[in-house]
């Protein structure tokens, strides 16, 4: 059997090794010149409950976790019951007959794979159960045994030689069984060349790597799903770069500490999720008023309130844009892919520092936890912007004007410890010299100054330069329908549009990555070049849709999914064709 790509799902009880099987399999795939894209859901329970790992493997780059399943590996009955409906007509089921056997009426091809028995026979213990799954599936799609065996060694070495050996035996047993019992799936020749360097990254890892590369050296946070892994990553790695990470008593403290660090000259960020962002609101306003650079990452999860912490939703855009008492515009950035998580994080810091503003980066649960192959970043090509500091000229004969009125709205910022002056950053309305004041003239002058920075940023974005790539736009000839979307729906949309193209329908696509300030020129161009605008979002209200409606003369058609799980390309394709 030959296919362009296959979607494999492994399901079983949380804690049974489902997730680790998927992780090992995906790394082995990448080392065998496959591209992949993973999607996982965690059980809500701390131990137990249904866990699943989905892996889409292909020789070419894949942009989504795929639609229907080619292979469903069930560790137990529950996994089968929950997932069999998602199989393709020719999709196969692998099952462990010790735990269950699909009913007679089940039409799809089902192959027994005795996970525990194979492990026991080849290694003397049933513990290699998940490695058997890795071996059997690996053999099926053409991952060489040696590649997986090497990986098993790397992973289990810290548990001792014995564990390595026993797992390798289980792997071997599984490969041999698979050779006999399971038909191979041919995915074609590799496109990835051997000497290209590809990274295997999750969105959260890419965010953290991006932050460090941007120069972030201070990071605080409060544990919250699904953002904790950013904080943990930073806690492990940042000290090695000369930075500091502190877990705080709450999110207010976390963002407060970042503001303090930024005031003292450090590039600072705090990762959180919706409930944490809510607590940070007042500090975001202080950042705006005191013109203190800061980056806040919101890895969105399904809300409101505690909601479904392990599920996804694009539910925080309205809050990110408008959630402030008083008028406090924010720069909002939404990475669209794992690769974007790295580069948009750098953009976030560059903007925060250059314009002395708070920047919110909106990721989400699926983007955070998915892993995928990402072309290795060329660190020498990264452009870094820093805050402007006053020149000696600025400080000559005069006291330092921290909030000096300038053409760009941006004022040179002294760093405490600098002997050339002093200032008091403040959340009170103030004049150029930080002196509090409440006169009508002062408030209007300073409001204009602060807002001017956003106009400057919008103009800089439009003029390209180092800020390039803040949106994706594709308007194919003859396209009558246009999709505007944001965030992690990018991949599924690209693939849905490819499906449409195969049926002869060209569809345009605009995907702003900087959501505020909006790419005004491009939106106007886009809207005027198509007859219909469709805005698919993983939320109920249609947040981007509201923004577009409010700012442009267009009535977008909304497609909203609010189930806590992401769009698949297939369902998007169908929905788009229906409403378009």
């Amino acid at each position, binding site marked *: 059997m030959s296919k362009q790509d296959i979607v494999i799902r492994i399901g079983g009880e949380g804690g049974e090794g489902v997730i680790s099987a998927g992780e090992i399999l995906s790394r082995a795939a990448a080392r065998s010149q496959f591209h992949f894209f993973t999607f996982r859901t965690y059980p809500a329970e701390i131990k137990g409950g249904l866990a699943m790992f989905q892996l889409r493997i292909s020789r070419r780059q894949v942009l989504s976790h795929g639609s229907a399943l080619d292979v469903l590996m069930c560790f137990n009955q529950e996994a089968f019951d929950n997932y069999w409906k998602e199989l393709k007509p020719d999709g196969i089921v692998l099952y462990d007959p010790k735990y269950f056997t699909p009913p007679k009426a089940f039409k799809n091809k089902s192959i027994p794979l005795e996970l525990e028995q194979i492990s026991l026979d080849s290694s003397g213990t049933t513990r290699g159960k998940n490695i058997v799954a890795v071996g059997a599936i690996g053999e099926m799609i053409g991952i060489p045994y040696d590649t997986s065996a090497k990986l098993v060694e790397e992973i289990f070495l810290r548990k001792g030689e014995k564990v390595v050996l026993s797992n390798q035996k289980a792997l071997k047993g599984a490969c041999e069984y698979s050779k006999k019992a399971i038909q191979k799936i041919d995915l074609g020749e590799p496109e990835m060349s051997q000497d290209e*360097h*590809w*990274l*295997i990254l999750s969105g959260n*890892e890419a965010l953290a*790597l991006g932050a*460090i590369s941007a*120069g972030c*050296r*201070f990071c*605080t946070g409060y544990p919250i799903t699904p953002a904790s892994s950013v904080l943990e990553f930073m806690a492990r*790695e940042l*000290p*090695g*770069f*000369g930075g*500091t990470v*502190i877990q*705080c*008593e*709450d999110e*207010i*403290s*976390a963002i*407060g*500490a*970042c*503001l*303090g*660090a*930024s*005031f*003292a*000259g*450090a590039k*600072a960020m705090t990762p959180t999720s919706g409930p944490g962002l809510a607590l940070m609101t*007042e*500090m975001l*306003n*202080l950042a705006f008023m*005191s013109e203190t650079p800061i980056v806040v990452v919101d890895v969105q999860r399904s809300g409101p309130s505690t909601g479904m912490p392990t599920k996804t939703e694009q539910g925080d855009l309205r809050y990110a844009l408008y959630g402030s008492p008083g008028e406090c515009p924010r720069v909002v950035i939404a990475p669209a892919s794992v690769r974007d998580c790295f580069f948009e994080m750098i953009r976030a810091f560059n903007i925060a520092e250059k314009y002395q503003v708070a920047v919110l980066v909106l990721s989400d649960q699926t983007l955070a936890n998915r892993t995928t192959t990402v072309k*290795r*970043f060329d*660190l*020498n090509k990264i452009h870094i912007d820093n805050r402007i500091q006053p020149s000696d000229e600025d400080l000559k004969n005069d006291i330092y004007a921290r909030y000096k009125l300038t053409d760009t709205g941006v004022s040179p910022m*002294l*760093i*405490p*410890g*600098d*002997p050339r002056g*002093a*200032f*008091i*950053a*403040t*959340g*009170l309305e103030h004049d150029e010299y930080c*002196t*509090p004041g409440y006169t009508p003239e002062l408030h209007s002058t300073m409001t204009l100054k602060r807002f001017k920075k956003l106009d400057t940023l919008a103009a800089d974005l439009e003029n390209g330069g180092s800020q390039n790539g803040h949106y994706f736009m594709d308007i194919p000839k003859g396209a009558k329908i246009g999709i505007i979307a944001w965030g992690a729906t990018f991949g599924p949309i690209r693939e849905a549009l490819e499906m449409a193209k195969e049926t002869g329908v060209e569809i345009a696509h605009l995907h702003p990555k900087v959501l505020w300030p909006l790419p005004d020129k491009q939106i106007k161009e886009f809207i005027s070049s198509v007859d219909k605008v469709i805005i698919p979002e993983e939320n109920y209200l249609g947040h981007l849709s509201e923004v577009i409606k409010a700012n442009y003369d267009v009535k977008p058609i909304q497609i909203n999914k609010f189930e806590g799980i992401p769009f698949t390309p297939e369902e998007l394709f169908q929905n788009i064709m229906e409403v378009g």
Partner: protein
Amino acid sequence: MAEVEAVQAEETRVDKRKATEYKTDLKPIWCPGCGDFGALTAFYNAFAEVGIDTKDVAIISGIGCSGRFGYFIKSYGFHVVHGRVLPIAMGTKVANPDLHVFGISGDGDALAIGGGHIPHMARRNLKMVYVILDNAIYGLTKGQASPTSPEVMKTGTTPTGGFEKPLDPVLLMLAYGATFVARGYTAKYKAVSDLIVKAMSHNGFAVIHAISPCPVFNKNVTFKSVSQLVEDIPEDHDITDRMKAMELALDKDKIHLGLFYQIEEPSLEDKLGLQDRYAMKIDSTARMNDLLERFQ
């Protein structure tokens, strides 16, 4: 011009500075007779005595009458939102450990809205000086009950008298494990100044509870009433004895003034090894490339 003179004064400074060097041109907006004036004078004097350089000072102040503190002292400062002095001070100090960081809060800022931060700052033992200016009332909002108001006190929000017991900041700090706990009274600003000088040389979280009456809105806790109750901590008090310190704080008849408690423990900066960390020469690009290797 004052700036130029100050710079000249700095150049000719031999040992100690003049307290006036630390004054900004801004006139304090406090009501005449406000206790905070005493605290401000204490700060000027303490800074002069230490001879500290204004560029090395960062004053983080909260919201309330005391929040204006930073505007009147020549130094770097951050006038923040209500109750968040400590987190912002922490970030400032950790990012630049060379700075002398001071936190200024009122009783509401520190113990009501900001109360959740204090135990954690005590646990961290960050090297900074935290001064709680306690007038047992919300002055800026014109007279509501605060966490240190006497229980029976009638205020705008407790028209028939309060119903919550007052907190004692000294007792709390001792319980939380702060490593330097002192109490001053701004009417005795020289003593407050001495405490600030001592606190500045303490390697950890130094807290000074400074009673600072509000003659406008607090008719119960007044200079007169406080003056009758204050008494210096006995000279033979062992400042390393936490139990004794608590006993003094629990004394119902007297308000003890002075240093209750001081012990040496590693500061947050020590525990994080910030000095070594910031002294490292790091090739970030090379290091990042190494890190990326791990994801291949």
